[in-house]
């Protein structure tokens, strides 16, 4: 049963889920790196993007998708300017609770907007053509699976180039390593923060596009579950560094896809318990993060 379930389809779906979660992990990891802020409201950015896609379903695809990016970037900038910046330097607990508040506020606003037609949920159809299956080597695979994997690879490569080859990228990495020293050395940290916030917004919008193809019904809790899983994955991978956070996001997405495929259809109810059981085990064995080698030694040197 289990062996039969681990076919190409399952693996490709698991990779696609891992790819989307990796993008979310980068978005969360970037902001954490620079702002030391665990942004619980990241999922609501994706939700806002998904609603935008739903409300603009009648538009041409390019217009609908660009509006989605514009709305998500605007909301993430608004969050930074109106809430995060004034609260800069507060304790991590205050910041975390603040992002909770923003998350539920956005969710409540979405509910109000959504309920105007007396039904919960809107359908995003503008790009649902990507949901069609194509046959690759005798195996049926949804186009969106390929798009998700491709988009994740392209986004990660572009991001890596941006961070290593440009001035703002170098400054972002310096600020992530040591915010205060970077500032002392003339790095314009507010510029770096805006750059980071926009990047994480771009990634959230890309995730919104991919997720609405996979799950066209958009409701106020859209992407909430995924965000929680990605946050867990990011911590399991190692929040300190972007690449370990990204790997953590991919790993938990891939693992949940594989466990989902391996469990008999009527037993998928066990997925969260198996997944989070593994998470606790990993954290017990490697508290600094699954992919963080040698962190403890370097922490002692500080």
């Amino acid at each position, binding site marked *: 049963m289990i062996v039969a379930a681990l076919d190409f389809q399952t693996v490709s779906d698991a990779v696609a889920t891992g790819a989307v979660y990796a993008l979310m992990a980068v978005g969360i990891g970037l902001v954490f790196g620079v702002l030391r802020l665990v942004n619980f409201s990241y999922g609501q950015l994706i939700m806002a993007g998904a609603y935008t896609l739903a409300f603009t379903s009648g538009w041409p695809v390019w217009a609908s998708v660009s509006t989605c990016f514009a709305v998500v970037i605007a909301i993430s900038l608004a969050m930074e300017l109106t809430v995060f910046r004034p609260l800069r330097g507060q304790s991590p607990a205050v910041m975390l609770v603040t992002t909770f508040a923003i998350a539920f506020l956005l969710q409540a606003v979405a509910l109000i907007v959504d309920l105007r037609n007396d039904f919960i949920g809107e359908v995003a159809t503008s790009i649902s053509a990507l949901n069609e299956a194509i046959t690759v080597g005798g195996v049926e695979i949804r186009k969106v699976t390929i798009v998700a994997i491709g988009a994740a690879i392209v986004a990660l490569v572009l991001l890596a180039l941006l961070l290593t080859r440009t001035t703002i990228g*170098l*400054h972002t990495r*310096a600020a992530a390593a*040591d915010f205060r*020293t*970077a500032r*002392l*050395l*003339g790095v314009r940290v507010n510029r770096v923060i805006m750059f980071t916030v926009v990047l994480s917004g771009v990634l959230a919008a890309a995730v919104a596009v991919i997720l609405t193809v996979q799950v066209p019904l958009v409701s106020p809790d859209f992407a909430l579950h995924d965000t929680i899983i990605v946050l867990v994955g990011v911590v399991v991978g190692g929040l300190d560094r972007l690449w370990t956070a990204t790997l953590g996001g991919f790993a938990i997405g891939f693992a949940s896809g594989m466990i989902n495929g391996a469990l008999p259809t009527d037993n998928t109810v066990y997925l969260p318990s198996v997944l989070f059981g593994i998470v606790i085990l990993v954290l017990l064995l490697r508290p600094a993060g699954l992919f963080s080698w040698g962190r403890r030694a370097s922490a002692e040197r*500080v």
Partner: protein
Amino acid sequence: MQALQGVNLELHRKEVVGLIGPNGAGKSTLVNVLTGFDFPSEGTVELEGRDITGWSSHRRARAGLTRSFQHSRSFRDLSVRENVEVSALGVGAGPRAARKRADELLAVLGLADLAEASAGALAHGDERRLGVARVLATDPAFVLLDEPAAGLPESEVPQFAAVIRSVRDDHGGGVLLIDHNMALVMAVCDRIHVLDQGRTLAAGTPAEIRSNLDVAAAYLGETAVTGADA
């Protein structure tokens, strides 16, 4: 923290001033007050005629007054060269100029071979020199170097002295040098300021300071006894 009383210190562009005194004399406190890491209960800090007493450290840095740290914190995930490039880019150098300046500084500080290495993997002495390279790359109008030569092999001190002179002569900067290496301080400083127990004990040219017996008692005498920890 050592309190300072009635200390008056001036640093001009194109000069190197040494700040010496026994441990606990208030040298670090003075540097902290000048660079915005401590704030004085009385007295003012002025930069080129402007009162900057209430300014944050990064604001002072942007205005051209910056410092190195005894315990330098490099950006560990960046390469050694990138660590220096960050500073040069931060003060508006183009990418190519920043790289050139970084390579120059790494060469004079003996870190050229480590340019590609991860800064987190540096030995302590190398990391300290990287801290100096990083702060000099901001091309500061005024720079306060807090024990930059500690841990430097004696054979590399002359080269390091040349770096400090180059900040003064080639870049027109003012340098406040705190160091226990008296040979270095005597060799590069135009003036020396001696602190003891938070007060100015003496100030003058290296020749004047060397001949000042009070200083000999308070500082040179002490280093003769406890020189091992300097």
